[in-house]
C-alpha cells in the first residue's frame, strides 16, 4: 500500500506503508543510530514525533516480546508501548531473524496502531530536517487526503502525558531514591535497581518533599522543559537541602532552569548514538547516546554551578554540577539503551552518594 509523508513546507516523499494504515501527524525528527529501533520506538522522549531512521535497513531482527516483565518493568523495551506517532525508514525488512524476536516490526506497529512508511530517501529527508530544525509533517495512506490540522506536540505538556499517574515503588534496599518521572526510559530504573536502591517513582508534578529520601533523580522526557514549572519549583526546594540530585536529559534542563540558567534551541539537534562528550574535571572523553533539540547555555550558569560535560562537536553543554553540593546532571543518556554504555559510571557515582547519605 502506498504511503506518503508530507512536510509542512509542502515537500512530499512517497513510499509504502508497513505499519498501521491510519494517517498521523506530528513533529518529524531523525535519529542516526544504527541499531536499537525497539528501544527508540518505546522511548517516551519521542512522544508526539514521527521518527525517521537514517540507517536504511530496519526490522532485520524483529521485535522482542513486549509483555515479558521483570520487577514491574518491561524486560527488553523502554516502556510498555510505542510512543512515536509514526516511523519513516528507507528499507524495511519484511523478514526478520533473531532468537529473541517475537514478531515482526510491522506486526507490532500494526498492533499498536502506529503508521510506518518505507522506501523513503531518508538521507534527503534528514538533510531537510537538519536545516529546518523541527518540522511538522503527516503520513497518509493510499490516495486519501487529510486536511485536518497538523498535530504540533510543542502545543501541549507532553511530560504530563508521558509521566506515570501515581506513585510506583520498586523496593530494593534501605536507601531510597525519589525518581521524578517526566517520561522515563525504563533502563534508568533498571540501572538504579541493579545497584541496590529502592526507587520511588513519582509523577512529574508530585511534591516529593513530603517523602523521606536519600537521593533525587530527575528523568528524561519529551517536549519542551518550559511546561514543567511545578517540577522546577520542587527541584528548587530540594536544592536548598543537601540530598544528592542527579538528572538526565530533560532532567539536566530542569535542574539548570531550577538553578537559574537558561536553555536555548540548537541549530542542529543531537540525535544519535555517536555524540562525543568530554568530562571537564578529568578531560576524559566518552561516546554517548543523545536525543535532544535544546541545550543549556553554559554562560548563564550561576556562580555555584559549573559545566560537567561539554559536547566535543559543537562545544554545547552536556551536563552541569554544583560546585559544593552533590548535584549533577547529564544531557546525554548514560543509561544508553539504545546506544553506547561508556557513561554508566554516572549511576555508580550517584548511587554511592545516595548510599553515603545518612
Amino acid at each position: 500500500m502506498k504511503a506518503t509523508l508530507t512536510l509542512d513546507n509542502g515537500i512530499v516523499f512517497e513510499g509504502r506503508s508497513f505499519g498501521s494504515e491510519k494517517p498521523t501527524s506530528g513533529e518529524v525528527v531523525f535519529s542516526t543510530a544504527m541499531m536499537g529501533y525497539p528501544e527508540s520506538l518505546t522511548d517516551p522522549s519521542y512522544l508526539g514525533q514521527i521518527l525517521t531512521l537514517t540507517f536504511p535497513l530496519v526490522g532485520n531482527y524483529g521485535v522482542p516480546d513486549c509483555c515479558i516483565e521483570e520487577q514491574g518493568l518491561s524486560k527488553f523495551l523502554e516502556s510498555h508501548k510505542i510512543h512515536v506517532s509514526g516511523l519513516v525508514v528507507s528499507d524495511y525488512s519484511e523478514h526478520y531473524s533473531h532468537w529473541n524476536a517475537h514478531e515482526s516490526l510491522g506486526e507490532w506497529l500494526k498492533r499498536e496502531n502506529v503508521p510506518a512508511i518505507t522506501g523513503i530517501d531518508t538521507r534527503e529527508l534528514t538533510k531537510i530536517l537538519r536545516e529546518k530544525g523541527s518540522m511538522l509533517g503527516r503520513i497518509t495512506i493510499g490516495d486519501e487526503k487529510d486536511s485536518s490540522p497538523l498535530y504540533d506536540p510543542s502545543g501541549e505538556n507532553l511530560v504530563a502525558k508521558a509521566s506515570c499517574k501515581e506513585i510506583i515503588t520498586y523496593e530494593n534496599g534501605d536507601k531510597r531514591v525519589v525518581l521524578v518521572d517526566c517520561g522515563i526510559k525504563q533502563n534508568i530504573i533498571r540501572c538504579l535497581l541493579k545497584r541496590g536502591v529502592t526507587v520511588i517513582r513519582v509523577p512529574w508534578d508530585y511534591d516529593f518533599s513530603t517523602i523521606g529520601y536519600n537521593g533525587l533523580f530527575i528523568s528524561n522526557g519529551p517536549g519542551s522543559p518550559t511546561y514543567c514549572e511545578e517540577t522546577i519549583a520542587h527541584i528548587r526546594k530540594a536544592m536548598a537541602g543537601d540530598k544528592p540530585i542527579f538528572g538526565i536529559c530533560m532532567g539536566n534542563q530542569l535542574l539548570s532552569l531550577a538553578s537559574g540558567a537558561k536553555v536555548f534551541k540548537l541549530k542542529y539537534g543531537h540525535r544519535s548514538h555517536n555524540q562525543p562528550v568530554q568530562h571537564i574535571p578529568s578531560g576524559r572523553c566518552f561516546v554517548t547516546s543523545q536525543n535532544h533539540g535544546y541545550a543549556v547555555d553554559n554562560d548563564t550558569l550561576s556562580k555555584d554551578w559549573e559545566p560537567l560535560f561539554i559536547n566535543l562537536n559543537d562545544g554545547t553543554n552536556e551536563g552541569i554540577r554544583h560546585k559544593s553540593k552533590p548535584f549533577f546532571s547529564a544531557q546525554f543518556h548514560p543509561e544508553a539503551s539504545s546506544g553506547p554504555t561508556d557513561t554508566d559510571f554516572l549511576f555508580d557515582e550517584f548511587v554511592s552518594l545516595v548510599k553515603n547519605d545518612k
Partner: protein
Amino acid sequence: MSTQIKKVVLIGSGALKIGEAGEFDYSGAQALKALKEESIETVLVNPNIATIQTSEGIADKVYLLPVTPYFVEKIIAKERPEGILLAFGGQTALNCGVALYRSGVLDKYNVQVLGTPVRAIMDTEDRELFNQKLEQINVKYIQSEAVTGIDEARRAANELGYPVIVRAAYALGGLGSGFCNNDDELNILVEKALTHSPQVLVEKSLKGWKEIEYEVVRDKYDNCITVCNMENFDPLGIHTGESVVVAPSQTLTNSEYHLLREIAIKIVRHIGIVGECNVQYALDPESEDYRVIEVNARLSRSSALASKATGYPLAFVAAKLGLGYGLNELKNSVTKDTPAFFEPALDYVVCKIPRWDLGKFHGVSRKLGSSMKSVGEVMSIGRTFEEALQKGLRMIGQGMHGFVGNKDIKVSDIDKALSEPTDMRVFVIEKAFEAGYTVDRIHELTRIDKWFLYKLKGIFDLSNDLSTFECVDDVSIDKLLRAKQLGFSDFQLARLIMKPANKEIEAATLAIRAYRKQNGILPYVKQIDTLAAEFPAQTNYLYLTYCGNEHDITFSEDSKSVIVLGSGAYRIGSSVEFDWCSVNAVQAARNAGYRSIMINYNPETVSTDYDMCDRLYFDELSHERVLDIVDLEHPKGVVVSVGGQIPNNLAIKLHRQDVPILGTSPVSIDRAENRHKFSSMLDQLGIDQPKWQELSSMDEIYKFVDKVGFPVLIRPSYVLSGAAMNVCSNKEELEHFLQLAANVSKEYPVVVSEFIQNAKEVEFDGVADKGEVVQYAISEHIEFAGVHSGDATLVFPAQKIYFETMRRIKKISRSIVKEFGISGPFNIQFLAKNNDIKVIECNLRASRSFPFVSKVLKNNFIETATKIMLGEPYSKPDKTVFDIDYIGVKASQFSFSRLHLADPVLGVDMASTGEVGCIGSDINEALLSAMMSVGYTIPKKNIMLSTGDSRSKIELVEPCRMLVQKGYKLFATAGTQRFLADNGIEATSVHWPDETEQPNVMDMIRNNEFDLVINVPKNLSKDELNNDYSIRRGAVDHNIPLLTNARLASAFLIAVCERSIDEISITSWQEYS
C-alpha cells in the same frame, strides 16, 4: 605530542601475499602522511616497489630491502631514528619488530616503539598470555591449549573434544590452520603447523556461531572508541578473509551490539593498546553468549575495510596517537571540523566480498575453511543489502553479473556444496533456490543467518518474476525501480526479460538503459560523511544508489574534470602496481589543473583513499556505472590505460557510446586486444610472431602441430574452472589437457601456438605521443620464455641481451607504436633467440612493470603518459636518463603455502600474488636482496637438488661446483646425482618419494634437513609428476625455500656464492643516482 621524536622508521609488509595484501600500502602511506604533517623525518623499509608508499614524496627515505630483523637492524644502525612504527606493515612488520625488541636491538639503539607497546603486542600474540589477560577481566575466550608437540596436541584435542581447530601462533591469515574431526586429521595438521610456528593452538570449534569484529581505537589518555563493527555473512568456521562481510552488523540487536562493544573497549584498555586494534568475536546465534576469538594489535585487512566503510582514516589516526596525541585533539578528516573522537554513523550498508583465483592453481583444494586463500577483495556500498551484494558480486570480476542472471554453473550435489563451502558458495545458494530448497533448509546446511538468506531469496523471487516477461515495456515502472534498488544491473534485466542471444546482449542492455532513463529510473549520488547527514559535511567520498531521489552534490559541465578508471579487485595478474599507476594518473591530472575523479572499489588500495583525488566514486567499474558517472560529470575524458585489464576492456564499449577516451584510440586498443586483428597487423608490418591458429577440432590441431612441432602452447578460449593455458610437449599431454579444458568445438575453439624453447623474454615498457616513442625501458626475464611474465624475475636494465637484439626490439617497437598511433603508456613483450625477435603480446596500457622501471629510472612514466593524454606540455627525458650504473631486479612472491595441495610449479599461467623490486650495484646484489625479500634465505648447509631435463642439469653444473667449493653439502635424486658425479661434483644420493629405501627425500624434508630445495620438473609424465610434486609440495608445507626454475636457481646460487649477506649495501633508494 612527544617532541623528542624527530626521525621514525616505519616497517612495511613487503610483497603482497595471501593474507597480507595492498591494505598495508594504504595503512603505511596514511601513517607516513601523518608523520609528515608533524615534520618528522620518515624512513620506510619495504621492498615492494610497486606501492604508493615507496614512491617519491611519501617517505623521506625508502629502503628497498628485505623486511627481516637483520636488515632492519642495519638500517636502524645507519639512520639512528628515535622511534619505530610496527603496526602498519601487517604481521610481517609486527613479527620483525617483536624480534628486534627481543634481541635487544631496539634498546641498544634507543629506539622507542610508537603506539602499542611490544609487551602488549606479545600479550595478544601469545595465546596463553592472551587468555590470562582476558581471565583477569572476566572476559570469555575460546577454550584452547597452546602446545609445542604432537602428543600434547592429541591430548589437548581429546580433552576439549572434537571437532577442534588448530592454529599456528604468530602466523598471518590463519596460515597452517584448519579443522580436525579426529586424531588422524589432527596429526597431519599439527605437524604442518609446527613448521610455521613453534607454538600450535588446539581449540574447541564453535562452528556455526556468528563471527563479529570491532575496530577499536584508544589513545594514551585512555579515551577509547569503536569505529566500526562488522558481521560475517558466513558463520564461524570460514576465515574472515574468506567470508562475505557486512558493515555495520545487520542481525545484532542493540543489546548484543553494545555488549560486544563494551567488552572490546574493556579488553583494549586492559591490554594497553595505543592506536588501532581489531577484536574478533564468536557470538552464539541462540543467546547472548560470546567468546573472544582474537585481538590483532595492529592495522589489519579489517581496519582498512573499516576505514573505507566508514570514511574514518584509522591508520592516519593510529599514527598520530602513536606520537602522543589524544583522540579529541585530532580532527575528523571528513568534516575537518569535529574531533576524531566519535563513532561514525553509516546511512548505507557495505559488503566485502573476497576474490579467489583458485582456478589458477593446479591441484588446489577449493574448499573454504579457517585458512585464507583469497587473493583480493571488493567493497560495495548500497542502501539495501541486496544492492550492495549484487554490486559486489559483479565487482569481483569473475564473469558473474550479480546473484542471479549468471551463466549456468553445474553443482552435482547441492547439499554437499552448501555444507562444505567452496569459492562458489554464494552461487550455490542461488542454485539451491532454483532446486526448490527453502530458506530453512539452506540455513540448516550453511548456518548462514536466515536474515541474509531471506534477502537472497527476495532477489531470486524477483528474478523469477522478471523472467515471466518478454518485453521491458510490460514490466511496471515500480517493479523496474524495485529491481534497480535490489541491485539488478541493466545486463541482468536484459538477460532476464529479453533473453537475448549472446551476440545481442550488449544491444539489449543498452535498450534497457535507454528505457529506464526515459522513465526516470536513475541512480543518485550520495556522500559518505561519517555522520549520516546529521551535520553538513564537505566530502568527496561518493557512491551511487537507486534508493534516493536527490543527489548530495552538484555537477558542472565545464569539461574540466578527468575520470580515471581504477584497477578493481586485486587478483593474480593485477594488483598494487595498477593502483600505483591509477594514483599517479589521478595526481598528474590534478596537478595539471583538472578536477580528478577516481572510480574504483578495492578497499585495499590507496586510490580509494578520498584524499587522493577531487572526487572518489567508490563504485563499479562496469560499462553501466561508468556511463552513469560520465552522464553526470561531463568529463573532458576518461583514462582507461592505467588500471590494467578491466578499464582496457571497457574502452571500446565506452567509445561506442561516445564517451571521450583520453590517449590512444579505443579502435587501436581493440586492434591490439583482438588476436586476429593484431596478428594480421604484425604480418603487414613484417614483424615476426610465433605461429598460431584458432582451431576447433582435434584433427585441425594435429595438422597444426605437424607443421610447427611440439611443444605447443594451448589457450582454451572458454576457460572452465581449473584449465587455463598450458604447454604440451607430446600427443599424450595434448589429449589429456584438452580433455581437462573441456572439449574442443566450433563454439569453444582453442588457440594453439608454436612454443619456442630456450628463448629469452624481453619487455619493452614505454610512453608514446601520437605514435612517437617518448620514453622506454627494456628489461629481460631471468627465466626462459614459458614462465608467465608476471611470475618471471625481471632485470632492468637488461644485462644479457645482444646489442643487435636491443636495436631490433627498438625498431620493431617504434613501428608498432606508429601503426597504433599510441598516445600514452604501452608495453610490448618479445621473444629473443639468437637475434631472432618475435612479438608475443602488445598492451596499449600501462603494464605491471611500470612502477618498477619508473622507480629504478627515477622517471615517472605515468606522469608523462597522463600529461600526453591530457594534451599538456611535458618534457621528453634526456637520453642520459637511461644510462644508470645500478641494477634493479623484480622478483615474484608466491603464496603456495596457503594453497593447500596446489602444485608450486611455474608455468605459462601466472601464479604469483605479489612482487618486490630491489636495487643493487650489480646483478648478484640486487638479486640476493630481491630473493630474500620474497622469503628465500641464504642456505646454511644442505641443498637438495633434482634438476629435471638435461638442459637444466647443464645449467646447474657450474653453480653446484661453486656450492661445493663454498662448503655446501649437496643431496640429489638418482639421475641428478649421477650427472653431478660425472661432472666431478659430489652429492649424496637420496631416494624418490615413492621408493622405500633410505635416505628418502621426504623423510629428510619432514625432518627439516634441507635449507633449500631445487626441483625442476622434467616433463609431464605421470610418475615423475607425482614424485616431483611430492617434493615440491613437501618443501612448501615444511616451509623450506623452493626453486623450480633452473635459470633462476642458477642465478640465485651464483649470487649466494659470490656475495655474502653483509656485502649487501644498506643504501636507500634516494641514494642511488
